[in-house]
């Protein structure tokens, strides 16, 4: 594997309140190669956003806590940095795009000023003219007329706002961009525009990316690698080929694919996954997916499965213990 830009090793995060302890992320490993895009897929509450926030040390101070693990960015552990050091990284080397463009912009500042803020923060001593020039450059890059920089966020539509947010994130040419559901709040045609733009910019600037999404369609379009997250664990990871074309899958991944209504074929019923995600304050002792799994065996309820590897592909399921071929052939028809 080529050089890594981000290497997360055994990261665990808890949210602790007086009443309960929520195990949001439980010992995950994630690696992003230079210039690659990793898609982190999972449903609400799987811990995707928590993972992203802990990379940038943005967890809520009073409740969120990293209990173990390292997050190495180009070899340095981000988690050991102090507030001053991490501020240099945030927005400079690692930038983040949040899900909701409506709430991530300041309503009382012009968009130009908001982009300038990021540029000034990380480039002291730029002249006013140079800053203006950069703002224009960034806005043009995301397809907004530079003359609109004096406008306020409410004068922009949802798709345009998300473009502004992306322009802000890319203002300092970060090495890694974390995009947390960047297109979920947008209409399909606008989503397509924004995705194409992200893809094009990424290829041009060579930015690495962590793309958090619940939409497997988005993953298929722009990611190189995929990690499937469920109840705070990575249950399956691999290249897009492993996940979309490979034969062996974690039953949860299988269920996810079965749950999406297919555009090209018509099925009578969707193969939904019964039940709900386990309560993160009270995770099952064995496999976290066991209560919903149709292949659940005795061992699944008792023993927590280990990750098994096959070159680029990794799985966390007892069905694949010691081998990556499954003996049972049932349920192979999860996708065409």
């Amino acid at each position, binding site marked *: 594997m080529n050089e890594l830009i981000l290497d997360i090793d055994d990261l665990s995060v808890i949210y602790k309140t007086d009443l309960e302890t929520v195990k949001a992320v439980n010992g995950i490993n994630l690696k992003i190669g230079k210039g690659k895009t990793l898609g982190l897929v999972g449903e609400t509450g799987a811990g995707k956003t928590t993972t992203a926030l802990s990379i940038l040390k943005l967890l809520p101070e009073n409740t969120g806590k990293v209990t173990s693990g390292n997050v190495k960015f180009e070899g340095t552990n981000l988690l050991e940095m102090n507030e001053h050091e991490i501020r240099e990284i945030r927005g400079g080397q690692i930038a983040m795009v949040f899900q909701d463009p409506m709430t991530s912009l300041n309503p009382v500042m012009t968009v130009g000023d908001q982009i300038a803020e990021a540029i000034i923060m990380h480039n002291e001593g730029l002249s006013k003219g140079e800053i203006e020039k950069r703002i224009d450059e960034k806005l043009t890059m995301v397809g907004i007329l530079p003359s609109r920089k004096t406008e306020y966020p409410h004068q922009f539509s949802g798709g345009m706002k998300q473009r502004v947010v992306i322009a802000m994130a890319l203002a300092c040419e970060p090495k890694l961009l974390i995009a947390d559901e960047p297109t979920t709040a947008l209409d399909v045609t*606008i989503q397509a525009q924004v995705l194409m733009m992200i893809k094009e910019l990424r290829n041009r600037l060579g930015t690495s990316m962590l793309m958090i999404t619940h939409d497997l369609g*988005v993953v*298929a379009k722009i990611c190189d690698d995929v990690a499937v997250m469920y109840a705070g664990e990575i249950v399956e990871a691999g290249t897009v080929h492993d996940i*979309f074309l490979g034969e062996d899958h974690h039953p949860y991944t299988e269920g996810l694919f079965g749950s999406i209504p297919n555009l090209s074929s018509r099925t009578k019923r969707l193969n*939904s*996954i019964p039940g*709900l995600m386990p309560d993160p304050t009270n995770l099952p002792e064995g496999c976290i997916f066991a209560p919903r799994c149709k292949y659940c065996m005795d061992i699944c309820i008792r023993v927590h499965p280990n990750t098994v590897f096959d070159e680029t592909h990794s799985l966390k399921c007892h069905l694949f213990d010691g081998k990556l071929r499954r003996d049972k052939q049932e349920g192979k028809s999860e996708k065409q």
Partner: protein
Amino acid sequence: MKNNKSTPLIETIGLRKLFKLNGGARLHAVDGINLKIYPGETVGVVGESGCGKSTLGRTILRLIEPTSGQILYNGSDITKISAGKMREMRKDLQIIFQDPYSSIDPRKSVIDIIAEYMFIHKVYKNKIDTYNRAAELMDLVGLARRYSSSYAHELDGGRRQRIGIARALSLNPKFIVCDEPVSALDVSIQAQILNLLMDLEEELGLTYMFVTHNLSVVKHISTKIMVMYLGKCVEMASSDELFQNPMHPYTKALLKAIPEPDISKRDEEFALIKGEVSSPINVKPGCRFAKRCDFCFDRCIQEDPNLTEVSYEHFVSCFLVEKNKVEK
């Protein structure tokens, strides 16, 4: 496709809803929709946010009063009938709302929410029968009876949506408007609810109008699909026909914009539609889509295209299609 040419269960004729804004401007939310929904059909209404699809759903139930046009239920006009009669009608015509978090009273228990409509309409003479029926409805939609005294905040989105469905079913309706019933839910839960809606359709012989922005969902559940753009119907056809043979440039673009979970199409460019939906306020004559359309020509900005039947039960509102037809 069902070709039962009896009376449509619901029919709208030139249905319009204009919202008056400050300063006399008018917002054309629903602008002349003719739609026939036959018993047993599921009609999907798709479009982007702001195209008027939810307003259409609500106007059909007279939750929003139409500005002009008619709504026929079983052949009789329900636009002019009194509020009292309309209330009677509502037993047959129900709606499932988008957001299971805000459409349910937070201070009522699950069983009371489901029983509420039956009390209002005095379906049963006594409380016991009503609650028994409510409990049956819980079984029907797959809600465990142990939740009957829970409150909405204790339940997750999927279960809340099941309450919404049970409530809509409580009066044995014939027709249900489903207004984005799964868009607030996760995919695995979404699949559960879609399966449930389809099972109920079969079991109870329901007719749905399914309003959504998600084309794959609409394809999965509908027999007929109507594509809306800025208050107008741009294309209407049976589900299979629409996906195999889309004619209107907007429908084509919409279908191409969906990212499919299939990596063989990875390097295919999305066919992008330029720009964004224009304002529905004081619209000028001409095709609503003209500004974003790649094939726009003079006539498109001068006059309104009409909905024409290009092939059996396939209606398109585009001059291009008309033109091609003549040339052929």
